[in-house]
């Protein structure tokens, strides 16, 4: 019997809905193959034990070769724990919009968290929370950030496969439009007037929504250097109000720094379009 030389994998949860962790379990056809290549040591969603020892704890035993981290940092305890996890992980990959951009819960960053606490909870004195929801990278160095709400199964497998092969993951940085056009889709904005965030949204989903005739709502977060002035102007032209525009950007990746100018752009008077399109006859 050889010693177990498989790299160890740990999956961690912070403030999140568990959907991205579940994506790992959704790798149904590949799951057994994956388990041949890595030792899934710590994964509370899958097992209450760690390497056969019960019960597994929130801090794990460690060390781990690869840690997948879901969720954002919203409590003092989270801050302590993410530093601990970083210390016991050789590679740390964030999975999903919460871990990468703060998630939908980062809406608190734009409001008064005390007010939320008083309104939402019957006994707010039991709730200890930070004023902000922040991505993992705001606290510790991160080796790779995988986008999406939730993440894409194929992309998760690609990141793990690349880790096993010691190569860079093939996760393109371009817009959803690239995937949409490569699939041969007809553009929902141009052909139907449907508002779509595809041009400023990071690829990875395979243009899922436009493929089914609806506009992208940006769950993979921003591309690098998005032109939000032009995008906001176009969304207005496709019938969205300023309030709707602020809301669609403040969903899964609300606190993405790239989206910071949107609130002002969407609520100010629409700037004059320097080149208004001709009205079709």
């Amino acid at each position: 019997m050889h010693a177990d030389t498989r790299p160890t994998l740990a999956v961690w949860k912070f403030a999140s809905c568990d959907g991205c962790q579940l994506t790992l379990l959704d790798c149904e056809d590949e799951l057994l193959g994956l388990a041949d290549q890595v030792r899934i040591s710590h994964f509370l969603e899958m097992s209450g034990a760690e390497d056969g020892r019960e019960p597994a704890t929130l801090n794990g035993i460690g060390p781990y070769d690869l840690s997948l981290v879901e969720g954002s940092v919203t409590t003092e305890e989270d801050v302590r724990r993410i530093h601990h996890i970083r210390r016991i992980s050789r590679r740390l990959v964030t999975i999903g919009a919460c871990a990468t951009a703060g998630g939908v819960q980062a809406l608190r960053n734009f409001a008064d968290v005390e007010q939320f606490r008083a309104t939402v909870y019957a006994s707010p004195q039991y709730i200890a929370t930070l004023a902000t929801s922040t991505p993992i990278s705001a606290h510790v160095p991160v080796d790779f950030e995988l986008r999406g709400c939730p993440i894409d199964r194929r992309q998760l497998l690609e990141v793990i496969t690349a880790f096993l092969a010691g190569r860079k993951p093939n996760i393109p940085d371009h817009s959803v439009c690239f995937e949409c056009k490569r699939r041969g889709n007809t553009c929902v904005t141009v052909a139907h007037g449907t508002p779509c965030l595809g041009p400023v949204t990071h690829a990875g989903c395979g243009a899922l929504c436009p493929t089914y005739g609806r506009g992208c709502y940006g769950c993979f977060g921003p591309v690098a250097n998005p032109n939000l002035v032009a995008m906001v102007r176009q969304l207005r032209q496709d019938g969205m109000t300023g309030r709707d525009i602020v809301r669609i950007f403040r969903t899964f990746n609300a606190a993405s720094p790239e989206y910071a100018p949107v609130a002002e752009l969407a609520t100010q008077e629409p700037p004059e379009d320097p080149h208004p399109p001709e009205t079709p006859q």
Partner: protein
Amino acid sequence: MSTTTTPAAEGAVIGKDGLATLVDLLRARGFTVVGPTVRDGAIVLAELESADQLPYGWGVELEAGHYRLREREDGAAFAHAAGPQSWKTFLHPARVRQWRAERSDGQLVIEEDDTPPPRFAFLGVRPCDLRAIAVQDRVLTGGRHRDPVYQGRRSGAFLVAVECTEPGATCFCASMGTGPAAGPGYDLALTELVDADGHRFWIRSGSPEGADILAALPTSAASEAVCETARQAVASAADRMGRTMPDTDLRRLMAGTLDAPRWDDVASRCLTCGNCTMVCPTCYCTTTEDVTDLTGDHAERWRVWDVCFDLDFSQLHGGPVRPSARSRYRQWLTHKLGTWYDQFGSSGCVGCGRCIVWCPVAIDITEEAAALHDWADRPDGEP
């Protein structure tokens, strides 16, 4: 196949039944017939099982950033301008596996992907797209290094051109010299006529294989009057182009306006989403993606479309060469209209208007070229 010959002077006439026979005949001869059909609110290019799937009675309303289907009372099949795809979708596909590698017992075996391509018959190639195919022929097979994927698909392709009688508001083939009459390169050329004398097609062959197919169709002789009506319909289309490219030496214009302030102006509007390049029938750039499986014993190399609007496209040690939207848009336009001549001896633009229609924010290549032309022509001393 697709050799340049003068169309037979007389030609012939077929009806809708003849068009149906043409599709059936091509399929019976083993061709995968691809043509226009209505899907997802657009006239797309897709495999046709019969001529019934052609967009009879459908036209399009085009503007910059705007495409809508419109019903037509005349029942015409080809009274529409370019749609969301071009023939490069089939000749130069978005994703192609190039090779695969297997490792077993320490041995590495690399296998080229030599899946035989389908033999395509393209029905409804507009004259601008006929030129676009010729442009890609030059790029992908006319130089020292030939692309075997393109060549394999292109060499067996049968092209049925349909001349343009109904240009769109974004069309400018007349000013690019590529239409609306069909240039060389087709196997068969059709001109659709719908009038008091009925719905019919004037048909000519442009190759021996085209002549062979034509001989098997139920035709009637083409009268002088029919030929004349068809020629008139095509000639009048030239006067109804919705757009015009500035009448100037575009290569010189591009080379002489690299510092024009217009580039900043267009960059402020451009989303750098890459849609213009992916719908362009001549843009040909690709990148490679290597994939491995979990065991590392199986690897594949894929070639996928890439475009100059992608930051990764010019990524070198230290970062992308063209980080700004200005530099990327300028790269695209100056190559398309200018340096393409230096590289391949022709314009890279054929005037199909797709980049205008499918730009979500309505950037118009003819408007940008005109603005650069105005700037180049400005009186001395103005910035």
